[in-house]
């Protein structure tokens, strides 16, 4: 029997102690811990790795702290475009969606593609139609918006640069960009 384990990430970037309040740090830590625990529980009950990663990413999409699902960043045009993918290491089957705007949980759409389609990747309206055919929840375009992400976009618009999700969380995105060379 394998030593079951789950690992998760919520994005990388210019994340420093100096730019993080104690409260915000605790919020991120609590969210990550709860989601790892959820994955551990699925694996402990004999659940599959595919089920564990699906649920972990769905929970990350539900948490507005992270750049996926609720809390996703804005495009230059002030919209949201979401992408997701997954792969089953047992069979090498894959599923992915890109550029979707109304699917509450893009990772569930990726799972639907993996399980129900001979194709690997759907984009835009076709992806949304496929997900809807498989009973996945659609939401209004503004469901994904948060005040923090909108403020992040306003700072980035001034720089005319695209920035990684956690680089523009606070301060001048140009500073963050320079840090990363």
């Amino acid at each position, binding site marked *: *029997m*394998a*030593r*079951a*384990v*789950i*690992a*998760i*990430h*919520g994005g*990388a*970037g210019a*994340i420093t102690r100096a730019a993080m309040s104690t409260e915000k*740090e605790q919020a991120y*830590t609590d969210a990550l811990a709860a*989601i*790892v*625990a959820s*994955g551990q529980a699925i*694996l*402990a009950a*004999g*659940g*599959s*790795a*595919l089920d*564990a*990663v*699906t649920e972990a*990413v769905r929970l*990350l999409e539900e948490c507005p702290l*992270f*750049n*996926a*699902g609720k809390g*996703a960043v*804005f*495009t230059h045009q002030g919209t*949201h*475009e*979401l*992408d*997701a*993918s*997954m*792969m*089953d*290491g*047992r069979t*090498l089957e894959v599923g992915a969606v890109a*550029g979707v705007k109304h699917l509450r949980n893009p*990772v569930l759409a*990726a799972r639907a593609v993996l399980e129900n389609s001979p194709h690997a*990747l759907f984009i835009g309206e076709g992806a949304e139609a496929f997900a809807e055919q498989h009973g996945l929840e659609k939401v209004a375009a503004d469901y994904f918006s948060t005040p923090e992400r909108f403020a992040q976009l306003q700072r980035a618009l001034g720089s005319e640069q*695209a*920035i*990684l*999700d956690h680089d523009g969380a606070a301060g001048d995105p140009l500073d963050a960009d320079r840090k*990363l*060379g």
Partner: protein
Amino acid sequence: TVGAVALDRDGNLAAATSTGGMTNKQAGRVGDSPIIGAGCYASNHTAAVSCTGTGEVFMRTLAAYDLAALMKYAGLSLQQAADRVIMEKVLALGGSGGLIAVDAQGNVALPFNSEGMYRGYGYVGEPAVINIYREE
């Protein structure tokens, strides 16, 4: 960007990745997250991988698959392959970010070349490990 990788008790690996992209990106731009082999990959023979960072660089390096290829064809360990991809190949092209990976033996690697990465892992029956900053 968010992601998860897992190994279950039957020895099966899986990976998933999801993102909203980059703030202020042009509409229609797609990064590595939905691209199998770039931002997400899993094979029971090597590893499960989920990436986050400068999407275009992860696409140009086929980062997720490259980690698995380094294990399969060059005989590198999970940690060696993960470090090679993030600290050398991605960084050499000016890419910032990291990845999470687990192999069929249950080893975990979470390298990143940026200041921080929100990350955590937990073996069944053991306390979870949660970290944010580089020095942790």
